[in-house]
């Protein structure tokens, strides 16, 4: 663990990425707290006299109820076509976008480890004529043959619109890579001395798998999960662009951006603020993922 940290610290870009992610986490938590629990910034307040105000404009003094004034009396990131505070919506959206990424990746990682692990550990067992391994791997091949984005689009469009459906569908269509390399790792680990020794000691299989094998196979999963969060956020924004994203009243960065594209000339901040936020956050996830890969790859360790 300490070695991993040392490897990460050497790479400046990774450290910048980590810092961005830390800020994002704070923003997401702050968003949850201040827009839902202690309502300081209400993303749902409509203030028609104050629509399309550019960032940093002071709120109109008359025509607004005291309760719907923004804090500090200013819109730090401007307002949208209904006079809603963009800062409040972005904060709320950061939590929603991040949870879509994490839950979708969580589903895909759990599925991937489960199927890959079963296939790698119990692969030789047979059900009837075919072995479990070939059964699971053929199923993985089947899933890999679907055009992913088209499949996600089909399912999301046919199901009733809900934020949970989007998370689940993205998760269910992205576990194949994880399953494949967990299986490969398990195959290699099964022959290693420490696993053979654990078996010879008579440890229960559950313990061998979860205490000895999974921690050793987790490194590539961690890398692909980090990058997976990034691509889930991008997929959500692409779905929003096509109109199948998270529906109101939830704000996500994807649907703020998709709504903002209609006002690109009149209110460019509605387009550029969410666009660059997504860019920075997804970039941070990708850089951290890549940094992890380099730090975890023993062959590259000596070279740097």
């Amino acid at each position, binding site marked *: 663990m300490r070695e991993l940290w040392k490897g990460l610290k050497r790479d400046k870009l990774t450290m910048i990425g980590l810092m961005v992610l830390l800020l994002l986490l704070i923003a997401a938590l702050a968003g949850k707290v201040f827009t839902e629990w202690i309502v300081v910034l209400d993303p749902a307040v409509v203030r028609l006299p104050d629509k399309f105000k550019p960032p940093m404009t002071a709120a109109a003094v008359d025509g607004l109820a005291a309760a719907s004034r923004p804090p500090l009396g200013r819109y730090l990131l401007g307002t949208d076509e209904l006079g809603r505070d963009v800062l409040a919506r972005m904060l709320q959206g950061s939590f929603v976008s991040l949870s879509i990424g994490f839950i979708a990746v969580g589903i895909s990682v759990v599925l991937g480890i489960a199927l890959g692990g079963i296939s790698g550990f119990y692969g030789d067992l047979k059900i009837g004529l075919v072995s479990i391994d070939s059964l699971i791997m053929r199923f993985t091949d089947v899933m890999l043959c679907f*055009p992913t984005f*088209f499949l996600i*689009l*089909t399912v999301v*469009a*046919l199901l009733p619109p809900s934020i949970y459906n989007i998370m689940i569908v993205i998760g269910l269509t992205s576990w194949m890579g994880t399953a494949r390399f967990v299986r490969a790792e398990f195959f290699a680990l099964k022959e290693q001395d420490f696993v053979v020794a654990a078996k010879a000691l008579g440890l229960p299989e559950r313990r061998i798998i979860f205490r000895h094998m999974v921690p050793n196979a987790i490194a590539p999963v961690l890398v692909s999960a980090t990058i997976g969060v990034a691509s889930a956020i991008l997929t959500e924004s692409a779905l929003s662009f096509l109109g199948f994203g998270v529906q109101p009243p939830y704000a996500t960065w994807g649907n703020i951006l998709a709504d903002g*594209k209609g006002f690109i000339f009149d209110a460019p901040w509605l387009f550029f603020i969410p*666009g660059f936020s997504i860019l920075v956050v997804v*970039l941070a996830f990708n850089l951290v993922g890549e940094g992890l890969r380099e730090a975890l790859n023993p062959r590259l360790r000596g070279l740097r």
Partner: protein
Amino acid sequence: MIAFFTKSLVQRLFLLLIISIIAHSVVHLAPGEPSEVDPSNPRMKPEDIARIRAAFHLDDPLHLQYVYWMRDLFSGELKSFKDSQPVLPKIWRRFLNSLPLFLCATLIIWSLSFPTGIFAALRRGSLYDRSTTFVSYTLISIPGFFLSYLMILWVVGTFNVPVIGMRTFGMENAETAYRWMDRVWHLVIPSLMSAIGGIAILSRYVRSQMLEVIGQDYVRTARAKGVSEDEVIYGHALRNALLPFVTMFGLMLPGLIGGSVIFEQIFAWPGLGRLGYEAILARDFPVILTLNFIAAALTLAGTLLSDILYSVVDPRIRLK
């Protein structure tokens, strides 16, 4: 070789069968019926709906519907729910529109990412390497439609050319040369935009592949023998680094359908991706299912092609 070919062909046909069954059940079990697309239309009487449902076999059990779909697909009589046009010619027309976009994008991807990746690997750790790394991560991280909108604003503002659609409306009677220029302008920006993600990914892959090969023993041996540096890089290293990319020719095939929905939507390009999107909106099951089926068939054909190509270029691989 022949034995390998038949064996994997049979395997793939079996996979295709399973895929088509799964796709069929997913689409038909999901809520939302083609006959419910326009429920507020007062002219749709219950008996009309019943007639439509009967005409499209929507009241039959699922496995019968599957059989009907397969029968119609292979006899070429499959009709769209939306406009009762035959599905296959409809897809073929859209395919001809998507093809130039796909070819152009592929050409851009391959011609840009190889030089970029190779030079980054040769100058590992240099400013050039680090900046291309950073730029490619940035390009992967931008939502495609965000970048495309910025690009459209910039191109239309600077060069004053139209980029939406396949051609400018009203140019039909212009001189041939003008018409072709118009077509080319309309083609360049969408294909560049759909190529950007591919360039970023492929150039990273070329770089890591090249780094891998440069560290090999035979490259060191070649250097030790006194072979010139150019000969070492381009004669010994590059040829071996290129091997895995041969397989990519096969794996690119399915990109024809899946990868283009967003960009065809942005640029109003009447291609396959957009056909799929419109079909999904209209609950046009035959079109959705057939597109999915073709995409899966292309993927399977692509993996088979890449296996065969790999065994042709790499004598160490023997197919059994």
